[in-house]
C-alpha cells in the first residue's frame, strides 16, 4: 500500500533512502519500523510503500487503520549508502518489495531527464506481487517472475544471462531485496566480473525495514 505523507519542513531525500515511522499507544508504548521512500525528491509528498506483514504490528496499523488526515510521527530521510545521486550510470536490481527504493530512482531519473542513466531488472514471485509493476514495465524494466511465466519468459529466477546485457563498465550496481535475493543477485554480479566495490546492497530483514 502506498502511504503519501505531507512532511512539514522536510529535507529532500536521495532516491534510495528510507523513513522511520513511529507509533505511540495511549500508555506510551511505541513501535517503529523503516519504510523505503518510493517518491522522487521532487514530489511534494513523501510516498512510503508499506507491505502488510502477517502479525505486522506497524504495517497492520498503517494498512488497516490509518486514514487520510491522520498525523504520524516520522523521521527521515535516513541512509546515505544505498542511494542514487542522479548522475552516475547505474544498474538497479530489485526483488519483491525491494523494488521500492528503485522506483524512487526511476521516478527521479524521469524528473531530471536522466532515464538513459538507469538499467533496471526486477524479480517477484508473480506480477501481482510486484509493487509498482505497471510503472516499472513502462520504464522498460526487465521483469522476471519466479512462479508464473511473464511474456515469452517461463517462470524462472534471475540469471547472469538476464543481467549481462544490462551491465556496462562505469555503472554502479544497486541491489535491493530479501536476504536470499540480495545475496544471490550480488553474487551473480560478482560472477559476471563486476567489482564488489561497485555493488551496493540493501537487504530487507524480517522487520520489513531496510537493514543494517
Amino acid at each position, binding site marked *: 500500500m502506498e502511504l503519501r505523507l505531507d512532511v512539514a519542513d522536510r529535507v529532500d531525500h536521495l532516491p534510495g533512502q528510507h523513513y522511520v515511522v513511529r*507509533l*505511540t499507544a495511549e500508555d506510551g508504548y511505541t513501535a517503529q519500523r523503516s519504510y523505503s521512500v518510493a517518491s522522487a525528491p521532487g514530489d511534494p509528498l513523501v510516498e512510503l510503500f508499506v507491505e502488510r506483514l502477517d502479525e505486522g*504490528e506497524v504495517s497492520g496499523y498503517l494498512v488497516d*487503520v490509518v486514514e487520510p488526515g491522520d498525523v504520524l510521527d516520522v523521521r527521515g530521510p*535516513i541512509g546515505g549508502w*544505498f542511494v542514487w545521486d542522479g548522475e552516475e550510470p547505474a544498474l538497479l536490481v530489485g526483488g519483491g518489495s525491494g523494488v521500492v527504493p528503485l522506483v524512487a530512482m526511476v521516478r527521479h531519473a524521469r524528473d531530471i531527464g536522466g532515464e538513459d542513466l538507469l538499467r533496471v531488472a526486477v524479480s517477484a514471485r508473480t506480477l501481482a506481487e510486484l509493487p509498482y509493476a505497471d510503472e516499472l514495465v513502462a520504464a522498460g524494466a526487465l521483469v522476471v517472475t519466479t512462479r508464473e511465466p511473464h511474456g515469452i519468459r517461463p517462470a524462472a529466477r534471475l540469471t547472469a544471462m538476464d543481467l549481462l546485457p544490462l551491465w556496462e563498465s562505469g555503472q554502479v550496481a544497486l541491489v535491493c531485496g530479501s536476504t536470499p535475493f540480495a545475496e544471490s543477485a*550480488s*553474487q551473480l554480479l560478482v560472477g559476471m566480473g563486476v567489482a564488489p*566495490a561497485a555493488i551496493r546492497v540493501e537487504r530487507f*530483514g524480517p522487520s520489513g525495514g531496510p537493514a543494517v
Partner: protein
Amino acid sequence: MAGPTRGFLGRSRAPRDPRLPPGQYDAGADWPVLTAEPTPRISPETWSITVDGQVEKPTTWTWDEAHQLPGAEYRGDIHCVTTWSKFGTRFGGISVDSLLDIARPTPEGRFVMATSKTGYNTNLPLEDVTGGKAWVVWEYDGKPLPIEHGGPVRLLVPHLYFWKSAKWISKLTLMARDQPGFWEQNGYHDRGDPWRQQRYQGD
C-alpha cells in the same frame, strides 16, 4: 509529534522478556543477515588481523598466530538496530584484550576504527572493546562461523547494536579522535547502546 497515534494499540505487552532492550523483538531461532556489500569469500590462509595506529607495537596475526592466543567465549544475547534480538548465542575466538595487551595502546589511543576485508568500517570508544566486552570470533555454536555471518572471522561487541560487530574483521586502528565509520557517516549513532536506543545520530 510526541502524543499517542490515533487508534494505535500495539501488540500485547504483558509478557515482555527482560532480556529484550526497548524497541526490539525476539528473533527466536532466526539469525537475519544484513550487510551493505556482497559477501566476500575469504580463506583462513589469507586472513590476518592487524592492530595499528596509536599503539606502541603495531602487530599483525595470521590465522594460526591468532589461534595461539588464549581462547575466549561469549555466551549471551545480540541486538540488531533493525529491531531483532537473538538470545543465548555462543561465540568462540579470542578476547580483543589479548590483542591489545600485545599491541599496547598509547595514552592518546582512545578510540578504535574496526575495518573489514571488504572496506566496511565502524568506530568504537576504546572502553567498549576492553575489559572483556569484545571478541574476535571464528566459531558460532561450536562450528566455524558461517561466511554470511562474517566468517571466517568477525568482531563481536555484543553490548552494542550489531553493526558495531564488523564482519570479516581485518584491522583495529587506535585513534586519538573519534571518526565516524560506514553506517555512522550515514546517520547511525556513534556509540549504539541498545538499552538507550541509540539508533541514529542525535538519539
